[in-house]
């Protein structure tokens, strides 16, 4: 076996700010084998980017040693950088330079000139399919094309090690698949690849996985055996008309159940141990089902991650409590004064143009009271624009966008009192404490006096933030930040809740906890509209609208969407399969330009 391309020996890295010291990498030891795809997997804040920068020689460890291609990054960063290709987040492209000019810059930096450069350019353009866009400015490329150009720039001089920092963030699923096949070709040619990702489903495609959480390495090795340990513990059953909003919390409380996940019309279960026949029938009887309804399912990487996180000795401190321990008695005024029997959200022939560009092109859908409705689509598809029009932040060019029967642009104050909004990056005041943030948002919604004190006390209790009331929100772990953001958004007990990419980047436990709360609120009659580009999040929705290039290309429950794309080759397509199928059909019908 050849020498490893990367060796990490008890690597520790911390960052000091004014008073605090944050440990980003905590004593990580690992190796990365040559000629394989190694996935660096973990939620946001796990330390993936720091580790990648340590490997690229952009940071020096405070303790331990990082060796890349046989060189120590502390002394020979220059040598390492001459032999690796690196694509940072957001791809490191000059948006005001064209495809060709970006490539030429990186080629010159790697001392490639003349005909050799021309040849390499042609070759990489063919390889990535960017050929027709040679003179287009990088800023005007789609997310997927930017990603391919970033990759081409990292491959200018064929690297021995290719380091990709979250290459699939903000990229549509079609481009994501293309990127995978490009990278797999590279590996066949002998390149070693380090691929960091927060998407757990990508881990399964890697040869090896380094699983990180909060600066610690939880697991190293091929992903297969990791989930294989859970064999016999994962099951699925069909909901068949049962109310998932009540069944999920009950299952979470069950002693045998480690994890519950809604998947379309079914429920995915991870049990604490491999059950015997009496235990399975016991479990099913409690739900009023037959033991025969429970079907074994192969464990997935995410199950393995959950299992690892829930092991008490591995599980780092300051993690959020398991969702099962947090029953959520949210006392919502079920009936908002404006609520009617008709749809709560009503969108008809909605159009928004920016110059000649139709960002939203004739979209229409309804959302009923207590429904969780998801807008799914790649970045730039028009989700956020639709969202902004519904929130009254942007005037539509044409058509209707009504919430509770009101055009938010015209009767803003009246309607906004019934709407909660949680922005993508949690719009919290970082230098204010938890209780100061809550107080501010309560005041902003016009709550005062006793009502305000009562709501703040309720929120601290409901979201288990009481002990942290005086902590600055910047210092909260990500999961708590998210809870606080949600608490702030529902300070005024809104009847409608808008969530913009609510859980991208958080770990699966935090995501489950979040959705448990949202489900409870929906059961209480709150209407929820979510945007996401994240298939997993889409599974939580009652109904989905798929938006692509400003158009609503499909509408239905997750199960309907999947079943419409069931083929002989793919008897049980995932939501992502369905999505890709939809987009490809759309592109074909439109005779779309090469992606």
């Amino acid at each position, binding site marked *: 076996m050849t020498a490893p391309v990367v060796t990490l020996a008890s690597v520790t890295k911390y960052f000091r700010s004014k008073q605090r010291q944050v440990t980003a990498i905590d004593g990580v030891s690992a190796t990365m084998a040559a000629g394989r795809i190694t996935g660096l997997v973990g939620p946001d804040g796990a330390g993936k980017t720091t580790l990648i920068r340590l490997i690229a020689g952009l940071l020096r460890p405070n303790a331990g040693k990082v060796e890349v291609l046989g060189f120590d990054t502390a002394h020979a960063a220059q040598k390492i*950088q001459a032999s690796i290709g690196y694509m940072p987040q957001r*791809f490191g*492209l000059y948006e*005001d330079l064209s495809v060709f000019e970006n490539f030429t*810059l990186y080629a010159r*930096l790697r001392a490639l000139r003349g005909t050799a450069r021309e040849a390499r350019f042609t070759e990489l353009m063919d390889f990535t399919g960017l050929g027709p866009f040679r003179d287009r400015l990088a800023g005007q490329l789609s997310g997927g094309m930017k990603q391919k150009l970033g990759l081409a720039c990292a491959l200018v001089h064929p690297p021995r090690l290719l380091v990709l920092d979250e290459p699939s963030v903000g990229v549509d699923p079609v481009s994501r698949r293309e990127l995978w096949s490009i990278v797999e070709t590279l590996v066949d040619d*002998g390149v070693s690849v380090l691929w960091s990702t927060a998407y757990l489903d990508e881990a399964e495609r890697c040869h090896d996985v380094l699983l990180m959480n909060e600066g610690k390495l939880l697991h190293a090795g091929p992903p297969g055996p990791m989930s294989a340990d859970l064999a016999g513990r994962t099951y699925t059953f069909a909901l068949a008309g049962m109310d998932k909003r009540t069944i999920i919390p009950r299952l979470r409380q069950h002693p045998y159940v480690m994890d519950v996940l809604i998947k379309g019309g079914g429920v995915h279960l991870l049990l604490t141990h491999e059950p015997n026949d009496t235990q399975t029938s016991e479990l099913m009887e409690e739900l009023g089902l037959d033991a025969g309804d429970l079907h074994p399912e192969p464990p997935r990487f995410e199950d393995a991650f959950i299992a690892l996180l829930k092991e008490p000795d591995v599980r780092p401190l300051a993690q959020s409590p398991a969702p099962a321990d947090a029953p959520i008695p949210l006392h919502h005024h079920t009936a908002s004064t404006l609520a009617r029997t008709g749809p709560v959200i009503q969108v008809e022939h909605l159009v928004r143009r920016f110059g000649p560009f139709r960002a939203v092109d004739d979209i229409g859908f309804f959302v009923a009271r207590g429904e969780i409705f998801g807008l799914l689509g790649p970045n730039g598809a028009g989700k956020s624009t639709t969202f902004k029009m519904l929130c009254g932040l942007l005037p539509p060019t044409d058509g209707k966008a009504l919430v509770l029967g009101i055009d938010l642009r015209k009767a803003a104050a009246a309607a906004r009192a019934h709407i909660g909004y949680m922005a993508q990056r949690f719009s919290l005041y970082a230098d204010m404490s938890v209780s100061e943030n809550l107080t501010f948002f309560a005041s902003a919604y016009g709550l005062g006096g006793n009502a305000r004190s009562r709501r703040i006390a309720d929120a601290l209790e409901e979201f288990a933030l009481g002990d942290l009331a005086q902590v600055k929100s910047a210092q909260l772990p990500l999961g708590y930040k998210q809870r606080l953001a949600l608490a702030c958004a529902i300070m005024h007990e809104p009847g409608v809740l808008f969530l913009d990419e609510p859980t991208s980047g958080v770990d699966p436990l935090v995501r489950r906890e979040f959705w448990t709360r949202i489900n409870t609120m929906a059961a209480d009659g709150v209407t929820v509209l979510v945007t996401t580009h994240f298939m997993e999040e889409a599974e939580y929705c009652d109904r989905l609208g798929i938006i692509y290039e400003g158009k609503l290309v499909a509408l239905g429950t997750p199960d309907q969407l999947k079943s419409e794309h069931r083929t002989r080759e793919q008897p049980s397509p995932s939501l992502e399969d369905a999505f890709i199928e939809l987009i490809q059909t759309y592109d074909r019908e439109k005779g779309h330009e090469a992606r």
Partner: protein
Amino acid sequence: MRPGDTSLPDTQKSSSGSAGLRLFGLVYKEALQIIRDPSSIAIAFVLPIILLLLFGYGVSLDAKHVPLGLVIEAPSPKTSDFAAALSHSEYFNVIRLPDRNKAITAMLSGRINGIIVLRSDFARKLYSASGAPIQAIINGTDANTARIISGYVQGAWQTWLIHYNLDHGQSITAPVSVEQRMWFNADIRSRNFLIPGLIAIIMTLIGTLLTALVVAREWERGTMEALLVTPVRIDEILLGKLIPYFVLGMGGMTIATVMAVWVFGVPFRGSVLALIGVSSLFMLAALGMGLLISTLARSQFVAGQVAIIIAFLPAFILSGFIFDIASMPGLVQLLTHIIPARYFVAALQSLFLAGTLWQVLLSNSIALAIMALVFLGVTRMRTSKALE
């Protein structure tokens, strides 16, 4: 050759050839970005021209046509003679007012900037030993203008007195008169010293503000990170920024000089080579500051704020461009010594208005060279290929 094929000839050796190619690549990229970025064009070309037009045509520190109230308590041939003399001066716009109270009201309302009162005993006391009483009340809100007006009034009075005495064959009992000659700027046009000083402001804008912004932009957009993980060296990255913005700054200097001489008629009495030399030194100091700021501030917002506070405002206020350094408080005068623009403004004003004065040029050039070395040296030491 497959995309992942690693059999390319090894061109990684850091021979001088590939170093030159890397540097060329960086400079070329920067040039493309300057051309395409409207904000670079605005700071490098549009802003200088606006400043030039503003200072050339708009702002003037000269006091001309100052509205002046004239109160004559007892009209006589002598008082009308003086009033006529005053009215003929291009410095004043004389408004006759009936009495002192009206004049004070006019001054309070801002219609006039000063009051001249010729008392009722003006004619009688003209030849007395104590001299004729004329009272001048000047709006002192703007001390600078007040001093200028007061000087003009005194001058006008003395001139009139001399002429009057000569015309009437009286013995000259007027006080000692001072004859003034303005050197270097005989017309006392403020434009003549403002516009050369403006070159320092323009070069500070390009060298410090623009440079700090573009480096911060590379950090913000993540392109710096991608650059750092290539065989490129720190010196190449720094030179890749220095060279294009040096050229841009010298271009700004040329535009300003050409406009100064051909559009605004400012004299240029020194040597062009000396101008290029001292401008280059200042440009290096300004670029050094810009790059130093960008090693500390990695967001465009912070970089912009810092550049304005530590480079642009001092260049404007403390360089002697508008406000005379010699009349500043001692402590502030001391402070001006660490401001590169101060030396450059002094050198520019002497090159334009006085000629190539080597003793002025040399001392200022040495100061600029030291500052350029310090700023660039500290920047080089503080920059590394690590992200911290």
